[in-house]
């Protein structure tokens, strides 16, 4: 299998497109992730340090404020007690009698220890909270706080009694001395530290003098530092650390409190604060690291499960040619990827199958096309395809070329009409116009060969679509001798069957007729025998003879009707069609009927009825027959009407009665021979059973139809038939022949035609009048004995209407009185001829002559 060029292109791999592989994206993602994590760690760390400092500083400031407040509260409390006490008049008593003095020192706030002394102005002690005070020596002599007009707080002072640093709060006792509080400073620091706690920041509490130089108390290592001068230490602030007295880096908060002007410093251990912050930030860092690790793991997994399988799949796909079986990528990988791999496998399998199929079907098609072409071209029977619309040949096979003698090119330039003998073409086209069945077998057909000979073939054809055309595939089979014989046999069998049917019909007819004839015959024969063999009364004789006569006539009518029917059915009765006035014809028919009940027949025919083209005698018979039936089947009277009207392009004539009517199931049979409605109400009404059958035949010979309607028994019936209109164009002529004898009229017309004179025929005078108006005939041949209007009366009217210029030749059987002859001559007839042999020719000659003379005059 060769590799197609486009396949090579596919194998070369994907085109280099700007863009990153999934692996690159993964790496970038991981780098970004790590960067962000590092940034976060740094931020956490630096912010934790800052936070730790700030929080330590704030802690220290807060603690210093609280400490200052507490110390001040102590002073306030002292003031609250001491003020009123110092000013109390009882002080004089105490000064006078020291034994009455009882002081005790209770710790006040942070001032855990100290003493209260009542001092004289000279500095000697009156009384004290101390045990066994020295009241003799003037130990406070010269102290600034001793002589003061206002209460005063002095600090720090070295207590001359205890030698420790104290705050002195002195309240003057006017004129006598002062009440002095000596509050030990040293315990304040540890006390505050104990109260507020050192916490994580390991706070240092430091109280100094107002100038900040002298330490009066310290929570850490107090014994070593109290009283020391620490110049410069005051610069410490909460924002920046500074080494404390022991060298430890601390963050200091500072507060002063008013009485005594002392300062309170609180220092937070920076290292401790930072180490706590370190712990915190380390925890955060651990969390960040863990998160990053998890993310890395996830990324890796995603890469392994998606990116890698996709990459491998891509490699596999790239390496496979269309149609290769591809191994599944493997069970690892995300479901979607695995599915993709499977889908791809399936796709490849399908592609392979389809490729194989296409290859084989192409080969097969190629092979089968060749085979079918061989089948078609090499088939021993002539075959061809033709276009259904144009009938042109589309394809012909070798056998057709050989058999018909045309070359393939000649064939393709012809249509299938061209292989038919010309006389068969109309029939063929008629057949082609009809929709053809999908599969058709017809024949035998005659086909014309190129050499002019004709062969008989059987055609098998079916519809196909060929090159977008609706076409038909034809196999033409030469009719073999045996087929021809078979066909002939078949045809003769069909003929025999038809003959058998015909003869069966004839037999039936004969049987029916003989049956119908037996009843009247039985009466005639029977009564005749009675008359011959019995003595009968004259009355009986008359009665019997009457019946015989009646039945004899009935037999005659039957025979006549039957013969007429045979003639009409057999086509032996020649219809002579002529324009006719239907109204006058109906009038004549009505006149023929003698209704025993005496009911007048109503005529409903409009005056302006168009002329009809009929055989007058036959249609007269039809109308008379229908009217006679109407009377016969109206035994109790009832109206009878006859009418006519134009329906579509026909004239309809109807006869309506209110008589016995016809049951619905009999309606379709009434026009059948010998059919009689089988109902007792019409017992005794005699008929041949042929009248309506004759009517039907006559009407149908005219191209019309006859029908019957009845609402049922007792509801009367309506018979109607149609006859064609006389077409104006069909009749025109120079001579109008007014003659009721169709045979003679025909003869006359033939003679006139022989002389080159055209003519029209009217079977009665009424029709003649109407034709005269329409056609303007230039001469008239007139019979005097006419149905309806008589010849003489017509002649008079002709002269009145059209003047005396029209030549009229009278041809008649009538014996004319001299007076009548005279009258006719007065009316200006050219000649009066007596009907007889040769008279038609004579009349025609005379008419032709007078026409010629008239033309001369006119010329």
């Amino acid at each position, binding site marked *: 299998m060769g590799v197609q060029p486009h396949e090579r292109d596919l194998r070369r791999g994907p085109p280099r497109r700007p863009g990153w592989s999934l692996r690159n994206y993964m790496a970038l993602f991981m780098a970004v992730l790590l960067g962000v994590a590092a940034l976060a760690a740094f931020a956490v760390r630096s912010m934790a340090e800052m936070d730790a400092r700030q929080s330590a500083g704030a802690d220290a400031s807060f603690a210093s404020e609280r400490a200052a407040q507490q110390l001040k509260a102590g002073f306030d409390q002292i003031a609250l007690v001491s003020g009123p006490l110092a000013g109390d008049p009882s002080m004089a008593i105490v000064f006078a009698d020291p034994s009455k003095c009882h002081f005790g020192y209770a710790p006040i706030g942070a001032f855990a220890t100290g003493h209260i002394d009542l001092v004289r102005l000279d500095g000697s002690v009156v009384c004290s909270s101390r045990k066994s005070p020295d009241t003799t020596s003037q130990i406070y002599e010269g102290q600034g706080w001793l002589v003061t007009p206002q209460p005063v707080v002095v600090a720090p002072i070295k207590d001359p009694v205890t030698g420790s640093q104290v705050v002195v709060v002195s309240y003057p006792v006017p004129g006598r001395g002062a009440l002095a509080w000596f509050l030990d400073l040293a315990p304040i620091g540890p006390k505050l530290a104990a109260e507020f706690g050192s916490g994580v920041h390991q706070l240092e509490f430091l109280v100094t003098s107002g100038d900040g130089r002298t330490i009066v108390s310290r929570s850490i290592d107090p014994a070593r530092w109290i009283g020391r001068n620490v110049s410069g230490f005051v610069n410490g602030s909460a924002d920046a650390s500074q080494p404390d007295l022991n060298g430890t880096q601390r963050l200091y908060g500072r507060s002063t409190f008013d009485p005594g002007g002392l300062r309170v410093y609180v220092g937070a251990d920076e290292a401790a604060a930072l180490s706590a912050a370190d712990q915190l930030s380390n925890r955060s860092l651990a969390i960040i690291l863990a998160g990053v690790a998890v993310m890395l793991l996830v990324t890796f997994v995603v890469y392994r499960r998606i990116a890698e399988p996709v990459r491998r799949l891509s490699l596999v796909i790239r390496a496979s040619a269309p149609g290769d079986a591809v191994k599944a990528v493997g069970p690892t990988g995300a479901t979607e990827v695995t599915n993709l791999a499977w889908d791809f496998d399936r796709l490849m399998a399908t592609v392979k199958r389809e490729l194989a199929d296409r290859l084989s079907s192409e080969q097969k098609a190629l092979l089968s096309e060749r085979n079918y072409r061989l089948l078609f071209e090499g088939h021993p029977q002539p075959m061809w395809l033709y276009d259904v619309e144009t009938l042109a040949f589309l394809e012909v096979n070798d056998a057709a070329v050989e058999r018909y003698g045309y070359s393939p090119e000649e064939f393709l330039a012809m249509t299938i009409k061209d292989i038919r003998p010309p006389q068969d073409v109309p029939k063929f086209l008629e057949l082609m116009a009809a929709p053809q069945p999908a599969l058709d077998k017809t024949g035998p057909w005659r086909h014309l060969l190129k050499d002019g000979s004709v062969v008989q073939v059987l055609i098998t054809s079916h519809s196909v679509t060929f090159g977008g055309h609706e076409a038909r595939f034809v196999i033409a089979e030469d009719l073999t001798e045996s087929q021809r014989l078979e066909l002939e046999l078949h045809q003769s069998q069909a003929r025999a069957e038809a003959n058998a049917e015909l003869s069966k019909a004839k037999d039936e007819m004969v049987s029916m007729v003989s049956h119908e004839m037996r009843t009247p015959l039985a009466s005639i024969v029977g009564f005749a025998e009675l008359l011959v063999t019995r003595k009968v009364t004259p009355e009986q004789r008359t009665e019997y003879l009457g019946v015989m006569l009646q039945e004899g006539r009935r037999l005659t009518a039957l025979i006549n009707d039957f013969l007429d029917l045979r003639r009409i059915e057999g086509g032996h009765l020649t219809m002579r069609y002529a324009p006719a006035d239907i109204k006058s014809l109906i009038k004549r028919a009505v006149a023929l009927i003698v209704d025993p009940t005496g009911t007048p027949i109503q005529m409903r025919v409009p005056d302006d009825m168009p002329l009809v083209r009929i055989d007058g005698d036959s249609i007269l018979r039809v109308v008379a027959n229908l009217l006679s039936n109407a009377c016969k089947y109206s035994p109790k009277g009832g109206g009878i009407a006859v009418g006519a009207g134009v329906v579509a392009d026909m004239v309809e004539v109807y006869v309506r009665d209110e008589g016995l009517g016809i049951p619905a199931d009999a309606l379709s049979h009434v026009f059948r021979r010998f059919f009689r409605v089988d109902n007792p109400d019409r*017992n005794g009404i005699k008929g041949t059973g042929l009248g309506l059958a004759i009517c039907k035949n006559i009407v149908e010979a005219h191209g019309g139809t006859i029908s019957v309607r009845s609402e049922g028994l007792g509801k009367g019936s309506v018979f109607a038939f149609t006859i064609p209109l006389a077409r104006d164009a069909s009749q025109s002529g120079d001579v109008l022949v007014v003659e009721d004898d169709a045979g003679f009229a025909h003869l006359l017309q033939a003679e006139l035609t022989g002389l080159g004179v055209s003519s029209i025929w009217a079977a009665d005078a009424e029709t003649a009048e109407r034709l005269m108006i329409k056609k303007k005939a230039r001469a008239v041949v007139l019979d005097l004995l006419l149905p309806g209007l008589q010849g003489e009366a017509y002649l008079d009217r002709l002269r009145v209407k059209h003047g005396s210029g029209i030549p009229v030749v009278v041809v008649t059987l009538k014996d004319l009185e001299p007076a009548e002859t005279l009258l006719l001559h007065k009316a200006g007839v050219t000649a009066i001829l007596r009907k007889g042999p040769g008279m038609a020719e004579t009349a025609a000659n005379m008419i032709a002559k007078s026409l010629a003379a008239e033309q001369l005059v006119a010329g």
Partner: protein
Amino acid sequence: MRTRTPPGLQVLRTVVIADDESSMRLLVHATIESDDYCVVEAVDGAEAWAMVQKHRPALVLLDVQMPGRSGLEVLGLIKADPSLAATRVILLTAKAQETDIESGLIAGADFYLTKPFSPLDLLTRVEEALQL
């Protein structure tokens, strides 16, 4: 030429004539007219059967082709009725084919006359039938 009814038997025997043609009824009636029979006429098959049931006649003269019920149908009804076992039937028909005759006789008619028939023959048949 007269009937051979035993003298003293005063019961008139009834004969029914059934034919839709009035001329035929007249002919048959005139042929068999006598003092010995009471003749009843029917114009169709239905009336004929009604007359037969009403008068229980000794003889029925049936035209085969009649409107309503045909003569053969009436014949079948008579033969199917045991109480009319004594009723004789003569068929009159315009049908003249062998098969028709056979079917008429098989149906149980006593005699069969084809139109046109001789009145004298008819009379003979009637008398024969009444003696059966």
